[in-house]
Every structure is written in C-alpha cells, then in structure tokens.
C-alpha cells in the first residue's frame, strides 16, 4: 500500500506509521478479548499451495505474544516518523516503510499461522523484511556486512526449521498445527531429535548464546526504531516458536529442562558480561537482549522440568515468569533502543566514550532511559523485577520441594540469575552514568538536542508501561491464567492456586513500591520547600578540588567496567592495547580495549573460512571452457545410458 502512494517522503512516513497504528489497534482488541475469556478464534481458507492451507488461529498463547508485538510496532512506527526525518530528501523512505509494514505483517502471521507452510512463509517474510530494514544505510560497508551476517544466520536457522517441520509432517502425516498438538510425537527418539532441531532453529532467531552472532551486528546497523522492534519483539518469535513446538512433542524428558536452563544460564551470563564490556550503546543493548533471552529460556526450562516431574508449581511459575518476561523485555528493551536512538539522533554518535552530560540537554530522553535501565536490571520498583521474581520463586519452591536431579539445576539457576541481575545493574549503571551524567566528553554532545515529540511520546508511553506493570503486578500475573491453562492443559483451579502463591508476595512489593514513590515525592517536596528561600549554586560535576578539571578526567566506559571485566577476563578475552606513560615527563599515553565476540572469533570465522576454502576447490570445475562443460554432460548421459542397459 505504501509503495503505491506518492513519492513525497512526508506522506510515506505518515501513511506507513498510520497504517501500522491502525493495524495494531484493530489487532489488539481481539487479542485482548481472547486473553480475557480464554476463547479461540479460527479462520480457514483454501489455499492452492501444496500441503498449504490458509489457516490462522488466535489462541491465548498467540494473543499473549501478539499484544506486545502490536503495541511496540505501533509505538516504534510513530517514533520512526521523527527518526527518519533526518534522511528525508536524501533518501527515498518508501521502501523502508514498505518493509516495516511487511515485517509487522510477517510477525503477526508467524504468531497466528497454524499451518507449517504458511508459518514458514511468514517466517521468511519476517526475515527478508528485517534484512532490508537492517541494510537501510546500505552505502556503509559495516552495515552491509552486518546485513549479510544476519541473512546467513537467519537462513541457517530456517534450514533447521524446515527439517523440523518435514519430520513432524512425516511422523503425523499432516501439516496442521492443531493435528500435531492433538496427536503429538509419542516416541522418544524422534521427539529428542525434533527438540534439538527446534532449539537450534528457533534459537538462532531468538539469539541463544552460541547462535547469537547476528544480534550484536544487526542491531547496531539497523535504524533505531527497527532495532527496537527487532530486539523487542522479533527475536521473541523464536521463543514463541519454541513454546509452540513444545506443545507438539508430548511429555518432555528431564534433560530438555536441564538443557534449556543450561542454555539460559550461558546466554544470560555471557550476554550480560559482553554487554558490560561494550563501548557501543547499541551493541551493549544487543548483548543485553541475549541476556534476557537467556532469562526467558531459564523460565521455560523451569516450566519444562515441572512438566517432566509433574509439579504444577514449577510449571506455572516457570512458564509464567518466562512469558511475563517476554512482555516486559519488549517494553523496556524497546524503550532503551528508542532512547539510544534519540541520543544518536541528537548527538550523532553511539560511542559511549564520546558522550556524557546529556541529562541536562535531553531531560525527557534521560528520564525515560533511566526508567528503562532500572527496569532492565530487574530492580524492585519496576516491571523487570516482577517476571524475574516469578522465575526465582518457582526455582526456590521447586528446589525446596523436590530432590536431587531437579533441585541442583534449580539452585544453580537461582545463583546464576542473581549473578546476572547484579552484573546487569553494573552494566546499566555504566550505560546511564557515562552517557547522561558527568561532563560532555566530546564535541558531539555540544550540539545535542532533545528529540521531537513523535520520538518522545512512544518513549514516555513505554516508560509508563514499565511502571504500570509493576503497580498492577497482581492483575497482570493473574491474566497469565488463560495462557497457562491453554498451553499446559492444567486445571484452572491448580493454576489459580499456584499463581496466588506468587501474587501474595507481589502485593507486598506493590505496596512497598507505592510507599516508596510516595516517600520520594514527599522528599522532593520537602527539599523544594527547604531550598525555597536560599541561594542554590550549580557547578561543574567533576570538580573534586581541581583548579582545571577537564572532561577527560572522568571515568570512561572501559574504566568503569574494568574491575568486572578483569574478574571475568578468561571468559571475555578482552584485548588491551596499552602504551603506558614513559620517562620523567611523559608526553603521551594511550589505552584501548576491545572485546570481540568469542563465538564469532573462535567458532564461526574458522568454520566458515574452512568451508569457503573447501568450496572454492569446486570452482576448478567452473573454468569457462565450453568443451569441458559439454564433456561433463556427455559423460554423464552416456554413463547413465550404460548403467541403464547394463
């Protein structure tokens, strides 16, 4: 629709964003209804594709994922109107909006499709649309490289999914999700293979740790509102796919739960460590996405352990925590990416070490970013806490009530999740502190300006969402009921009972939050009252008694993270290039740190290099000599003829 309209860029932006918003509003209503009543809506149309049927269905699980998808799509679209204005006139924005709409459409159909062929087509539509969005600034070499890495990664994932669906189709003789869910795969051997295929295939999209390489490349390359959408909701389609796949595979053996918890711990721990070591704000956020995918996966792992051991408390709290974290992560990660986008838009850089002191120049963005940062660290007054609390609670309860094989991974999870939470706080203290506090570190900041209202509004809505989810935590957790019932097949009463176990402590937290906010407001008022008739001086932040302070005396991103990156040095492999000060009157000294991605360096580069070498040998066959080509054909044909007449 967008492409058909006039070539005036202003129109493109408004039409593109408008159509996404309209779609989101009209899509949210039925999703909300389904969540409320637990009903299921279906639409089947004949479709002339082999094995295909245009069969979409809205059940509570789809609705749960659909809501944040649509909300974040609409908000990012509104944001994009302002964000893309910088390119107006230099670049036709039509294609960008066209692919944005396609991406939203693709994600919706991925969530709704109930036929394997339709699902895969939507999956590919999503991948292709996002590829074109990532390569928006395709004139830059680094962006093109990032685009290709993403393209290859997503297609490798799809290859596994193709095998997964074909095997399932062969096992059950149908391509219909509802048939698969009813029949399931009862035998263990194929189920194990299918589980592994699904984990690799969907895990590539979600960004499980060894498969995550495309995230830190693609997210920085994409325009910020697209990064927000991709990181906030698109990678969650991988989680959705995994959950949907689990409903086909019958009762899981214990090791599936262990496996997911192990993946979650690896992704979470290494994700947050790498995030801590980054200098690029968007790369930092990308690694943080890997971390949170890890946390969600831990929740799913706890749930799976619960299904295997028939312990409803694990099922409800594990899956519930994971699902809630999906929504929460969509909110705060979307918010943070939009915030970084505003910083990038205002100052023109996303290097943490070039920024500083933005709080005064961009107060709205800073406030929104602060809320996002607190939420993403899982601190109590905000929404990130609620979902992590559910997972903690589930792991504790399960660990206490069961023994041996189940309890050990659960306690490891508790310890790991606590460590991850602590590191996340450090990571986002660094991000917020270096970027928004202190003094400007470079010229970039000097002409930084606050974002326009189309960009501020979505950030504020998302920030409000983060606060509201915590304030209404009991209600939100209660609304998980229908999803959990339909997904796990537990009795409503059992789900209620177990959710209540989480709701009662949460109510205290909410009360505490409300008290805290009231106290904070009172203190602010008190301070204002006390200072009313006095002279208030403002001064340079990092004075510290020096007569000639310079911004270069401040902490940098590297020095702030140094104690932690040194502690985890063996895992991170941070490289330092130091030229220390020499002599009695040292002239210059330099320090440069960088943290390359270990799986990219140690696994993918050698493997792909070897594959490339190996395949290059095939090029000898393609030498451009017509005679030999004919010879190939002739020899093949004659050999076949002789073979047949033998």
């Amino acid at each position: 629709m967008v492409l058909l309209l006039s070539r005036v860029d202003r129109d493109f932006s408004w039409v593109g964003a408008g159509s996404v918003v309209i779609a989101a509003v009209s899509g949210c209503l039925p999703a909300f209804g389904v969540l409320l009543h637990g009903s299921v809506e279906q639409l089947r149309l004949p479709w002339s594709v082999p094995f295909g049927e245009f069969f979409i269905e809205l059940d509570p699980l789809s609705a749960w994922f659909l809501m944040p998808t649509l909300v974040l799509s609409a908000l990012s679209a509104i944001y994009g109107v302002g964000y893309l204005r910088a390119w107006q006139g230099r670049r036709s924005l039509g294609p960008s909006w066209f692919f944005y709409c396609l991406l939203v459409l693709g994600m919706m159909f991925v969530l709704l499709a109930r036929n394997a062929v339709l699902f895969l087509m939507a999956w590919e539509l999503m991948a292709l649309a996002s590829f074109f969005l990532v390569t928006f600034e395709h004139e830059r070499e680094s962006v093109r490289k990032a685009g290709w890495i993403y393209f290859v990664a997503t297609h490798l994932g799809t290859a596994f999914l193709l095998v997964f669906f074909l095997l399932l189709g062969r096992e059950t003789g149908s391509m219909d999700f509802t048939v698969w869910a009813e029949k399931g795969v009862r035998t263990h051997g194929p189920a194990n293979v299918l589980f592994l295929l699904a984990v690799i295939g969907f895990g590539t999209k979600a960004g499980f740790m060894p498969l995550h390489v495309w995230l830190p490349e693609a997210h920085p390359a994409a325009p910020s509102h697209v990064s927000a959408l991709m990181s906030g909701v698109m990678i969650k389609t991988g989680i959705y796919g995994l959950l949907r796949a689990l409903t086909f595979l019958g009762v899981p053996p214990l090791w599936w739960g262990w496996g997911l918890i192990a993946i979650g711990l690896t992704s979470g721990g290494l994700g947050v460590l790498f995030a801590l070591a980054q200098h690029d704000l968007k790369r930092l956020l990308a690694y943080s996405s890997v971390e949170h995918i890890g946390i969600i996966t831990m929740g799913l792992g706890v749930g799976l352990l619960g299904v295997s051991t028939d312990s409803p408390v694990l099922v409800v709290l594990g899956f519930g925590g994971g699902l809630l974290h999906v929504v929460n992560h969509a909110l705060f990660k979307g918010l943070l990416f939009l915030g970084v986008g505003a910083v990038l838009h205002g100052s023109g850089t996303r290097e943490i070490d070039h920024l500083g002191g933005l709080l005064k120049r961009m107060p709205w963005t800073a406030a929104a970013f602060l809320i996002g940062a607190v939420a993403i660290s899982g601190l109590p007054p905000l929404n990130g806490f609620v979902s992590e609390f559910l997972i903690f609670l589930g792991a504790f309860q399960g660990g206490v009530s069961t023994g041996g094989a189940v309890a050990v991974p659960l306690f490891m999870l508790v310890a790991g999740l606590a460590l991850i939470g602590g590191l996340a706080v450090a990571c986002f203290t660094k991000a917020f502190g270096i970027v928004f506090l202190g003094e400007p570190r470079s010229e970039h900041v000097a002409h930084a300006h606050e974002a326009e209202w189309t960009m501020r509004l979505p950030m504020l809505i998302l920030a409000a969402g983060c606060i509201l989810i915590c304030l209404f935590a009991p209600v939100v957790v209660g609304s998980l009921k229908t999803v959990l019932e339909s997904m796990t097949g537990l009795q409503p009463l059992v789900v209620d009972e177990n959710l209540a176990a989480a709701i009662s402590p949460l109510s205290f937290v909410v009360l505490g939050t409300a008290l805290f906010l009231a106290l904070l407001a009172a203190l602010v008022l008190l301070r204002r009252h006390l200072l009313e008739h006095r002279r208030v001086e403002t001064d340079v932040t990092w004075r510290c008694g020096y007569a000639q302070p310079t911004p270069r005396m401040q902490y940098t991103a590297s020095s702030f993270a140094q104690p932690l990156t040194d502690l985890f040095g063996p895992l991170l492999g941070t490289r330092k290039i130091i030229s220390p000060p020499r002599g009695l009157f040292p002239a210059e000294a330099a320090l440069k740190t960088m943290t390359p991605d270990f799986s990219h360096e140690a696994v993918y580069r050698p493997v792909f290099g070897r594959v490339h070498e190996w395949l290059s040998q095939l090029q000898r066959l393609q030498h451009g000599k017509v005679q030999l080509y004919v010879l190939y054909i002739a020899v093949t044909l004659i050999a076949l003829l002789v073979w047949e007449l033998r």
Partner: protein
Amino acid sequence: MMTDLILVLVVLTNLKLLGSSRLGSSIRVVAAQGVMLGLLPILVHVHELSLHFAALAAGTVALKGVVFPWLLFRALREAEVTREVEPYVGYITSILIGLAALATSFWLGGRLPVSTGEPASLLVPSALFSIFVGLFLIVARKRAVNQVLGFLVMENGIYTFGVGVVAELPFLVELGVLLDAFVAVFVMGIAIYHINREFDHIEVNRLDQLKG
C-alpha cells in the same frame, strides 16, 4: 539394401570427420551426410510413400545440403580460417576413439529395448554413433565452426534415430526439429562472425576469458 548402404556411408563420413583437419571438406562431408539422411525416410518407408515424406525429405535436403553449407562457408570466409590447428585430441587418436565409440554403439544398440523396423539392424547403432561423434567433436575441437558441425552431426544422429525407431513421427515434430537446427546454425554462424570480429579468432577454448 539402400538403407544399409546409406547407414554405412553415414558411419564412414563420421569417421572421415574425426580424421579431417580441413574445415571446408568437413562442411562438405556434413552436407553430404545431411543429404543422404534426408533421403533415408523415403527409402525406409518405401511402401507407403506419401506427400508427407516427400516434403520432409525435400526440406531436409534443401536445408542440410544447401543452406547450412552456404551459411558455414560464409562464416569461414569472413573468419578467414581454413584448418583446425592443435585440436585437444589428435586426429589418429580421434579415429581410434571413434572406433571404440562405434563398438559401444553396436553393443548399446543390441541392448536398447526399442522396436526397430525389420530392415534396420544398423539403424540404432549408426544413430548412436552419430550422436557420440557429434558430442566428441564439440568436446575435442577448438574452432567454433567445428562445434557447429558437431552439433549438426549430433542432430543427424537424433534424426536417424527418429526415422528408424518411431515410424509415425508426427510431421509437426519433424518440422520443429528441423527449424531448431536451422535457427541454431543460423545463430551460431552469426555468433562466429561476431566472435571473430571482436577477438580476432574463433577458438572456443579462449572464450573462458569472458567468465566472471
């Protein structure tokens, strides 16, 4: 009797092609082969001679005996070449390989489960032999004219096969095959001319410089 004579002549002309370096004589040999094969359907279906076969024979003879040689001679003149020099496979070796191919053709012809008509014990082997020789010429020679000749010989083989094996080959299909061959030779003649003008030679092995 006449059929067998023609088929033996076809086999001999094929061997002559393998052993000849002069492009002009090769073109004449292929033309002669084409004329003989054009007469073949009349001789095979001598009892049920009809306008259909006569028209087909006339068309084939005109095309293969007159038009193709004329096009190819023109191309030769324009490219100013007369001989194949330094082929990939030498002429003696070529003839030896040709003999091996002939043996293979007879062996394959004996085993091929086709319902040949009564007089045609030689038909299938010679058809296969023509196809092999055509392919061999394409593979083993460098001059573009020889490639075209190889293609024509291969087409002759397919034609022989069709005449002998499928008695009631639809008229339209035969015309189609003929048209195909005509277009192919026409295009290749023009291509040879242009390749020559562009690169000052018509050696196919040097076309790999065009590869990306």
